């Protein structure tokens, strides 16, 4: 295996993926652009809002076009209570024959921030029911730790509100989450451009899940490629280890042994 493949590889719940990029399927200008963008992203895991996409579209639906080539990850988008999210996850398990779920329990329409109390409840119940749970959560180290402790396969803290493109708003929290959690950390929501994705990986996060930043870009296919490269670059930088920051310059050429004139 070459170094590049290894750099991109990561494991969730015992399953190894060849890309750290997880991508969504909403709001692309059209389906062709969506497929081209997903292809360009190199992503293996593709999320689908099960409540909003019918499985029967006469052979041209999302499942028909993506189903056999990608690991489809159903999400519970549009759920506002634990009960709702659990039912949606169960319907998804039945329909898509997968026990993986990206768990979203939204607290409020305006900000789309998670409802932490309901999220914890839903996560606990779904884990008990045998789901591989990947919860979308606040960038709160305590919440992430609780989710890990109850058996979630990864934690997916937001970097900024969904669709906002505001980038990594609280890198310190992400660093603390990195230090405290041992499950994969996937930054979900808030990434606006490739440098945001790189930054998250540099901080030690394991992957990125995004949608709007690619789907809403002027050229979604190019942006998908940019994100892929940003994620790869960020991961390399993390593995390489950055130099310490300092206020004053250091000459990169040693001064010892210089000829005195």
């Amino acid at each position, binding site marked *: 295996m070459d170094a590049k493949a290894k750099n991109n590889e990561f494991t969730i719940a015992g399953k190894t993926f060849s890309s750290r990029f997880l991508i969504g399927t909403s709001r692309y200008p*059209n389906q062709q652009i969506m497929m081209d963008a997903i292809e*360009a992203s190199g992503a293996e895991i593709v999320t689908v809002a099960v409540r909003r996409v019918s499985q*029967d579209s*006469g052979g041209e639906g*999302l499942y028909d076009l993506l189903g056999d080539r990608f690991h489809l990850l159903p999400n519970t988008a549009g759920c506002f209570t634990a009960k709702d999210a659990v039912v949606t996850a169960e319907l998804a398990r039945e329909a898509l024959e997968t026990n993986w779920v990206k768990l979203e329990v939204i607290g409020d329409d305006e900000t789309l921030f998670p409802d932490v109390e309901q999220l914890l409840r839903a996560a606990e119940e779904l884990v008990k029911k045998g789901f591989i749970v990947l919860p979308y959560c606040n960038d709160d180290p305590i919440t992430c730790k609780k989710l890990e402790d109850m058996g979630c396969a990864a934690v997916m803290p937001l970097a900024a509100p969904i669709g906002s493109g505001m980038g990594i708003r609280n890198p310190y929290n992400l660093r603390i989450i990195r230090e405290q959690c041992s499950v994969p950390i996937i930054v979900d929501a808030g990434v606006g451009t490739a440098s945001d994705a790189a930054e998250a990986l540099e901080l030690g996060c394991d992957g990125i899940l995004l949608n709007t930043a690619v789907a809403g870009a*002027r*050229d*979604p296919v190019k942006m998908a490629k940019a994100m892929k490269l940003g994620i790869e670059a960020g991961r390399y930088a993390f593995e390489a280890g950055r130099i310490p920051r300092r206020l004053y310059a250091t000459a990169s050429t040693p001064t010892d042994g210089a000829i005195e004139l």
Partner: protein
Amino acid sequence: MIAIIGGGICGLGVGWRLAQAGEDVTVFDRGAAGMEATWAAAGMLAPQAEAEHGEEALLPLALESRAMWKEFAAELCSVSGIDVDYREEGTMVVGLDRDDLEHLEHRYSYFQSLGLDVEWLSGYEARKREPHLARAVGGAVYSALDHQVDNRKVAEALRAAFLAAGGILQENVEITGVATAGGRISAVETADSTINTDIVVLAAGAWSRNLAGLPEISRPPVRPLKGQMVAVQMDPRFPLIETVIWGPGNGVVPSIYLAPKSNGRLIIGATVEEMGFDTGLTAGGVMELLRLAWDVLPGIYDLPLVESWAGLRPASRDDAPILGPTPTPGLVLATGHHRNGILLAPLTAKAICDYVRSGEVGSSIEPFLLNRFEKPVAANV
């Protein structure tokens, strides 16, 4: 005989042009003609205000068809005696809050980069044009060239024009499949008969893909894309608005439109849902339409709600129509128009008629042939 499958705006339009040219043409519809997407639409002819990233290839086709509409409407009216309510007040896209306005500015600069003829209005200027707009409207993009028609009247007029030109309309006759002989089209089939024909124009909207007997290589990638809609009734003497208004959309919140007709009917649409062939209304769908419309135009609050419905846009993979020949000789496509069926009708009618009669693909439809879907994905990155 030329058989056209589907009596929507595309099938009837192509049929009308062929019948006018003296061809022997029959349009088949499994129900009453013009009652599916054509009926469900809102009749907007707005290629500028609806221009989207990634769909630049569609723009020249849409602009060309829009330029044909005024004459098309006048001709329909003179032949059928039905006024299709062609309105030229224009189209306005409005923003309500800071996020909307930022998004709208982003779109405005995109429109300008395309060389479109659009104008930025302040909130004050927007309300001067449409005084009933909400106080919160902080800016708008106005497109004087984006017009509208009453699509239901177009359907009626087109049906009458087609019949007047000598076309044969077979309603409540479902074409269940096509037959081929030696790779060529040889017949269309109903439940109890086979009708020989060597030319079939497939204009069956959202149902185009799954017609039995279609060779796999000639199957158009079209799927149903559901849209829920409602209509409220204004007093036609004192309409709340006269231009078509597009509400804010910011990439996360979907946008809605309000299309006022001269008879006072105000159409509010539309959701965009990947729900297969389901056409049920949902509480959430209707609520979103009304809530977003009320944000823009609070005066709708007291108006009678006169209708609610859902239709199926025939969406191709890239949202552009699929027109012209296929690898199967005799099979011609006029489908996949997505939300642009009404807008693209005059051009589709002319171009497909020309192709059927001459065998030559016109330059405007050349980029929209079925074979464009053969390209490898992500070839440009």
